């Protein structure tokens, strides 16, 4: 299920990042772990219940200015839907 652009995703209960000092940065969940790098880490760090999907997309557009904005937004929506289905985020 893809989020609305106005949604404010946040990590689901029992889901958190490992400590900043622990590399690689990893998203920790019951019985599973997801290695995060580059865009996936940027996205997860902004899933704080405050940033809207639109704001996360805009941040990514700035960071990855060489890529086509619509493509970035589409990929973002897809990734957030995946995380939601895996119960890693709520929105």
């Amino acid at each position, binding site marked *: *299920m893809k989020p609305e652009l106005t949604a404010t995703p946040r990590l*689901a*209960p*029992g*889901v*958190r990042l*490992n*400590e900043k*000092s*622990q590399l690689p940065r*990893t998203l*920790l*969940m*019951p*019985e599973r*772990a997801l290695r995060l790098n580059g865009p996936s880490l940027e996205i997860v760090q902004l899933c704080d219940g405050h940033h809207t999907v639109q704001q996360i997309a805009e941040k990514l557009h700035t960071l990855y200015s060489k890529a086509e904005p619509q493509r970035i937004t589409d990929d973002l929506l897809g990734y957030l839907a995946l995380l*939601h*289905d*895996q*119960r890693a985020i709520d929105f």
Partner: protein
Amino acid sequence: MPTTLPTPLALVAELTHRCPLHCVYCSNPLELAKRESELPTQTWVRVFQEAAKAGVLQVDFTGGEPLARTDIVELVHAARLAGLYVSLITSGLPLDEAKLAALVEAGLDHFQLSFQGATEQTAREISNSTSHPQKLRVLEWLKKHRIGVTLNFVIHRQNIQELEEMLLLVDEHRPGCVEFASVQYYGWALANRQALLPTRRQLEFCVAKLKEAEERLKGKTRVVFVVPDYYAKFPKPCVGGWGRKLMLVSPDGAVLPCHAAGVIPGIHFENVRDKSLQEIWESSPAFQKFRGEDWMQEPCKSCDRRHQDFGGCRCQAMALTGDPAATDPVCSLAPTRTKVDAILASINEPKPAILEEKPAYIYRPNPA
């Protein structure tokens, strides 16, 4: 041919074999560790630090019943401080609201609550204890905290008929995850296998119902269903491969590649009292024994699937064939698959008297 040593990812901290329940499906070894042999708090604290340093991400506190340890809050705190994601795998007793709050405060990430049935009567029959009402209380207390919650329904022939009632509990409490874990046949479960193995028809009912539930709960509750190994066509990649991802520290400090490895004769398990966890992971003979592929027999040795299932389960091969290096008999390509088929036949065809019999359970005792 040298192989890169894998980084351990998960630590199973089997804190004690003491338990207020006596479940007939318990996967603990038949020889339970005595209370006086249990590791002291400070040794566990060191183990958590060593685990995190070695690359471990997650620790599962289990047993027996981890809440039976009076230092459980301290242990949770120490594991979290060490940089581990902390899960508690528990029956939910002994526990009160204050202790649950203390566990959460100490840094508990995830609470996995077991269910022996959907009703008090079934739970009592399976666990020989009055524990079900307490679990329902725990479900209410958990709502006050923002941690991961998994309900783990252990299913088998004697409680599959309660599946819909179990799903009602899920609908009512909306945990992050629900696991319907079919009993696997190790330890006490193996001793009680004839009473527990489901029929093919029961399994089909289960698969259909849970597929439906998974769809209905998508985006709300993650549904996990583990089929009994014997009914699978190919074996599970047991613990992600021997000595590849997981290590288990027993109540007395022995380090094992999995909870059942004690059934394999001729292995000496090293102890955290004597050596560091990292040293044991890297070079103990127990961990080296089934790493890589040199130990494999045919058909595993030349089978493409060896890269995904690592030949299946060593302990299951031992239990069913007497040879821990054999292809897991669960595999449809195993020459010993006929043994598993015979066991299934004893439950499925023709309608055997065993299904009508009241089970003669062997209840798991509490260690001295």
